[in-house]
């Protein structure tokens, strides 16, 4: 499997580290919503097909990437820097100035 890093270009799978499901939505740090935290930790779509994933180019530029990979074929249809593609921090956390 080859992932085309937006900076480094096409690189072998051995240079990348899987960082998990890209569909998870992390609840606000101050949240006590049990359902939301349970979903964040345990709920996974587990699709047979296109899947949003986070990979780190650990053996390269070390940036985190948002990758769309087909779990049946390993075909990769989309790669972007996770920082650009990821969900925005909530307004509450921005105001407190906490690091993301």
């Amino acid at each position: 499997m080859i992932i085309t890093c937006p900076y480094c270009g096409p690189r072998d799978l051995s240079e990348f580290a899987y960082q998990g499901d890209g569909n998870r939505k992390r609840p606000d740090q101050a949240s006590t919503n049990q359902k939301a935290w349970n979903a964040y930790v345990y709920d996974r779509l587990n699709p047979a097909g296109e899947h949003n994933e986070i990979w780190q180019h650990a053996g390269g530029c070390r940036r985190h990437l948002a990758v769309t990979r087909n779990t049946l074929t390993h075909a990769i249809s989309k790669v972007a820097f996770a920082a650009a593609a990821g969900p925005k921090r909530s307004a509450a956390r921005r105001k407190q100035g906490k690091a993301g």
Partner: protein
Amino acid sequence: MVDQLSPLEPVLRTGRHGHLADGVGVRLAETQPGSIVQLAAWPGEEKALIRTIKQVTGLALPDGAGGGACGNGKAAFGFAPGRFMVIGEDENIAGVFAGKLSQKTGTVTDLSHGRTGIRVSGARAEWVLAKLFAIDFALPAFPVGSGLSTVHHDIFAQIQRSGADQFDVYVFRSFARAFWHTLRLASEEVGYEVR
């Protein structure tokens, strides 16, 4: 100047080795520059950092991923978004950058004692390195001056092409001896000269 202590010193055997029937395929050497420095730009400050690199080293880095240049005993290249390596004979490059680089632009980290530079040159340099790294070392894909970041198993490496048949590989100092051992084994079939 204080003598540099090389991590390769106990294993460095100068001379010609390996399969030499067709001559020396690659030359291996430790570059021992005075400085190895890493620069990182804050978001949106990459162009300003490239200008500072030009100001300090005289090297104009081309725009784009992995863009680099070398000459006059200095070298610089990008290896990640907003991140650059600067290498030179001057022992105080980090100090000069610390004075010239605005805090709003980015940071400078002196890695002179943390990295070891190994030069692989000669007609079979591409061939030998391609056995170790999953990288296209052909000249059109990896032009002179440009650099990249990659890995050989657990050994991180930043590589700059400093000539048509010459590559400078920077590895963690603590891994240098292990990498040197691997490099010598990879070079054996083409014949190699250590100096």
